[in-house]
């Protein structure tokens, strides 16, 4: 038994946050630096009351409908997010209720950030290959703008919100599909990207609500996401190329065997550097962040979904995905596509249809 991605679709909020709007909020000169580096021109952001789960539900519902798949036939729902609706219960259970899935459908969450997609795919793949599931819905959804201080000059220009639904199904052993994963962690860097007051270790209090303004004028509290930029950047540009090389060696492949290399959409300059160090030719590169921003754990499946929509994933080809970030954590997956290819989901991607 093998597992294969048979459909993928995403959903983004309708609300746009443009660089012109950010110029009203931040020093234009400082904003120029980050825009130049990131290549991000606008992001999609949730409205008050809208959550990552809402986006994930819409992406999933449209994908299932487009493929003619009844939610009642799912036997696994995995929801992957760092911005869940509740601390308790798991969002996968809420999604299970909204989709009207069957009682025979397992549902659970995975809490992981930027690196989440290869990890979640690996878990779903393992459950299918071991016979515990045959038809799985994987939803990667994050609304980081809800946990970033609106005056954080370093993080606001980079991030957007979004969700991706992926249908993973059991296929015969000879079918192209999943199975090649390399996952890793450097827990010594857990403090480099975190919300300090977000759980039992540091309960929220009046003290954690106090605004902290750094020398650049950027503002946050301990209840907001905080990033050690140089540490994350250093990890990304030096560790990620090594991880991809190690993955290719593990799978007995070279870049010549890969048709498309998709990276976590953190920022353009960083990705260009990783591609350059690896020697990935232009035709094997693909970006999708300029109009949507970095969506943390939803970012890698989103770039894959958009590549499918744009016809960049060719039948019978191999796609390498590498996701990396908070944790510090990384994951590589190589996906083999069948000769019949993967058809794009014919449905809107915006939360509210016009």
């Amino acid at each position, binding site marked *: 038994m093998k597992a294969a991605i048979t459909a993928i679709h995403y959903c983004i909020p309708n609300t746009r946050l443009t660089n012109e709007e950010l110029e009203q909020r931040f020093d234009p000169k400082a904003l120029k630096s980050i825009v130049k580096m990131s290549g991000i021109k606008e992001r999609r952001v949730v409205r008050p009351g809208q959550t990552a789960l809402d986006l994930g539900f819409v992406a999933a519902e449209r994908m299932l409908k487009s493929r003619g798949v009844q939610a009642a036939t799912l036997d696994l729902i995995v929801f992957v997010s760092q911005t869940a609706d509740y601390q308790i219960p798991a969002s996968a259970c809420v999604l299970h209720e909204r989709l009207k899935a069957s009682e025979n459908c397992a549902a659970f969450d995975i809490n992981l950030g930027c690196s989440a997609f290869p990890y979640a795919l690996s878990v779903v793949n393992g459950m299918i290959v071991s016979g515990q599931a045959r038809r799985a819905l994987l939803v990667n959804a994050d609304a980081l703008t809800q946990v970033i201080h609106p005056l954080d000059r370093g993080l606001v220009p980079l991030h957007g919100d979004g969700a991706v639904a992926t249908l993973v199904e059991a296929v015969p052993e000879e079918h192209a599909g999943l199975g090649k994963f390399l996952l890793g962690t450097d827990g010594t860097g857990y403090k480099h990207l975190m919300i300090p007051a977000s759980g039992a270790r540091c309960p929220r209090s009046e003290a954690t609500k106090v605004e902290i303004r750094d020398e650049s004028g950027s503002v946050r509290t301990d209840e907001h996401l905080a990033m050690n930029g140089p*540490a994350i*950047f250093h990890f990304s540009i030096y560790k990620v190329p090594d991880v991809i090389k190690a993955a290719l060696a593990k799978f007995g492949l070279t870049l010549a065997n890969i048709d498309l290399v998709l990276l976590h959409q953190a920022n353009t300059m960083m990705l260009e*550097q990783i591609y350059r160090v690896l020697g990935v030719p232009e035709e094997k590169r693909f970006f999708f962040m300029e109009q949507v921003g970095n969506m943390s754990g939803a970012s890698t499946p989103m770039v894959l979904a958009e590549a499918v929509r744009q016809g960049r994933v060719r039948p019978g080809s191999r796609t390498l995905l590498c996701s990396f970030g908070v944790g510090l954590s990384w994951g590589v997956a190589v996906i083999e596509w069948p000769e019949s290819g993967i058809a794009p989901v014919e449905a809107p991607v915006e939360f509210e249809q016009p």
Partner: protein
Amino acid sequence: MISMKEEQLRNLVAEVFEADAAQINDETNLRSLPAFDSVNVLSLMIALDERMGVRLSPEQAASLQQMKELVQIAREQGRLQA
């Protein structure tokens, strides 16, 4: 007399922080340059690696003050011989 490599380093710093290379010397406070900010320090990390093979650690990048610190780092990594 500064070496060609040192001149290359000054030109690179001037380019990233939008300054006049002729005005940069060992005593220059990098934080006083027109486009110095935490984001452009990350651009400097990439430019240094790509063009000169010099690697800045996260700690060095975060605490960077004077041009002579960069010269010292490049020298320690054997990237400033003429």
